């Protein structure tokens, strides 16, 4: 039974991730007065599958001077945590894989491992652009993981639990976004940075570092990084929905639909931002993180604690 569930969830996630790339291309295209993919299938609907096939049969290049094993291992290290975290995400009241007490902590600790994939990919490629990309992402992800962790402490205090189901249940009346607007904003920024999206996409800043840490990758290995990025986007969106937007809760429609709608809104926001904003510089990113976001996170925690102690 559990195995069937795992297969269903993995399959659906893979499909959704593939179509997320399609959605991104279409949305960006329309933002830029283009039409995007149109050739494969009706309105290019089969494009992601064609892309997948292309990447599958493409020549897989391993640079001669690369550290072969680490080079092969890195995309896997990157992709696996991105998918493993879905184990504790409750898609609806009854549809989830595991209900563990430390759900949120589990997500954070597992997704923290993804950074190795990026750092080691940068190192093992034996290319300076990849190395610089790896460094940047290491620094960026470590820092923003901290802010991500700190920003969600507020809602966790309100819920009084790390369990994802209990957190959603705690929002039966009012969503936490009402109580924790600051935490929500901080989480959103940290989440965008954590997934390396514009305006924080420095590790793979095309125009500076060619493609950053995955410059030397091709074929399926490249696809792994690609999938991991989009899977992580979904994880970050799902977590936002669980922590701030009341998870699957909503009137009339079944829980899973509400969950999908809310996650979809977040994903659209990610894409929208990409169509609008330029990119920050590395030192600016770090300054924003440590000098603005970090104190605000601490302030939010302190305020939440005081108000919780005094009034609730």
């Amino acid at each position, binding site marked *: 039974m559990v195995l069937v569930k795992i297969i269903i969830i993995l399959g659906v996630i893979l499909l959704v991730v593939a179509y997320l790339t399609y959605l991104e291309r279409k949305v960006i295209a329309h933002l830029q007065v283009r039409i995007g993919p149109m050739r494969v299938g009706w309105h290019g609907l089969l494009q992601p599958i064609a892309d997948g096939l292309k990447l599958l049969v493409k020549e897989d290049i391993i640079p001669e001077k690369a550290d072969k094993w680490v080079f092969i291992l890195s995309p896997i290290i990157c992709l696996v945590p991105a998918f493993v975290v879905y184990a504790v995400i409750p898609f609806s009241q009854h549809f989830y894989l595991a209900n563990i007490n430390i759900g949120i902590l589990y997500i954070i600790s597992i997704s923290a491992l993804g950074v190795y994939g990026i750092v080691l990919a940068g190192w093992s490629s034996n290319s300076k652009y990849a190395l610089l990309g790896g460094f940047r992402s290491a620094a960026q992800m470590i820092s923003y993981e901290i802010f991500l962790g700190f920003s969600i402490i507020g809602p966790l205090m309100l819920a009084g639990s790390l369990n994802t189901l209990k957190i959603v249940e705690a929002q039966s009346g009012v969503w936490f976004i009402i109580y924790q607007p600051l935490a929500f904003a901080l989480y959103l920024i940290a989440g965008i940075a954590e997934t390396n999206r514009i305006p924080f996409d420095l590790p793979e800043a095309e125009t500076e570092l060619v493609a950053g840490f995955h410059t030397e990758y091709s074929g399926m290995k490249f696809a792994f990084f690609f999938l991991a990025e989009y899977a992580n986007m979904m994880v970050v969106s799902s977590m936002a929905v669980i922590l701030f937007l009341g998870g699957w809760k909503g009137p009339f429609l079944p829980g899973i639909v509400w969950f999908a709608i809310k996650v979809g809104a977040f994903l659209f926001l990610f894409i929208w931002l990409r169509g609008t*904003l*330029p990119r920050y510089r590395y030192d600016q990113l770090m300054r924003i993180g440590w000098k603005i976001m970090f104190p605000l996170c601490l302030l939010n925690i302190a305020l939440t604690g005081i108000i919780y102690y005094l009034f609730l």
Partner: protein
Amino acid sequence: MVLETKELLLNMGPQHPSTHGVLRLLLYLEGETIVNSDPIIGYLHRGIEKLAEAKTYTQFIPITDRLDYIAAFPNNLAYVQTVEKLMSLEVPLRAQYIRVILTELNRIASHLVWLGTHAMDIGAITVFLYCFREREIILDLFEMVSGARMTVNFFRFGGVAADLPAEFYPKVKEFLDTFPAKIADYEALLTQNRIWLARTKNVAVISAEDGINWGLSGPNLRGSGIKWDIRKANPYAVYNKLDFEIPTGQMGDVYDRYMVRMEEMRQSTRIVHQALAQMPDGEIKGKVPKIIKPPAGEAYSCIESPKGELGFYIVSDGSEKPYRVKIRAPSFVNLEALPLMLKGGLIADVIAAIGSIDIVLGEVDR
């Protein structure tokens, strides 16, 4: 134990998404900070100056298209004007106006390419596509006039190749009427954007004094606050009959150069408007001998191309072929000052700086 830090040598280009062609930059880095840099050029060197000595004067006009290939009209103009000076040719007024209209439209097209690629380098992809949408209209206009979109080969000694077609006028009017709103669109995405400001303000600064010393010209020098535009300072064609402003910056940073070019697009729109209104009827080509054989002598003549001072120095020995043609390419000189702007900056500033000086490698390497 003493840990030694090593300078990292990063080879940027010649194949790199934001070196705008085949520029190679050697960056000496300490971390991500640039200690020194060395632009290496010549990957697009086609020996155009040598080629000129083997072609007749007329045969060389199409080759000038290939210098700054995104702004072919100004190249034509600078060359043709120098030969006209050498031969003391008269150019009819109508031809002068046609020249001004086309070069100013080309200035807008060139600035649109600059803005699009510059913004894309800094991460704003949408601006790029917006800019190319408008540039497309201008290229269509060029096609209408000359039959070619980029390598136009349109100006002739003593005039232009053909009169503007009748369908040109409504199209260009329509473009001029809608374009200011489009500029406002670009500005809405960038000018007040905090990220854009953070990426461009105080980045790749060059002072006015350094700018002159290093030979900067065009918007790059005006960004540093020098109000010098050859169209005003030493008017050629009919620019002294047209009313326009010269925008300048103060700081000489990437942002100022951006603002100068944005304003220049507006001013160019104004110029085309006026030129269309003032344009007289008449000949489009003056009295020109069948065989172009300038008397022995030499002449230098320059124009304000979209990139800066574009000059031709031609030495004639009285034959049908030029004895020596030297092209004073603004991009070549502007690129020379790049290491000065980069020093102490970060890798991310390199692409902002390259984008902001608006070089075209076809002109740098010749």
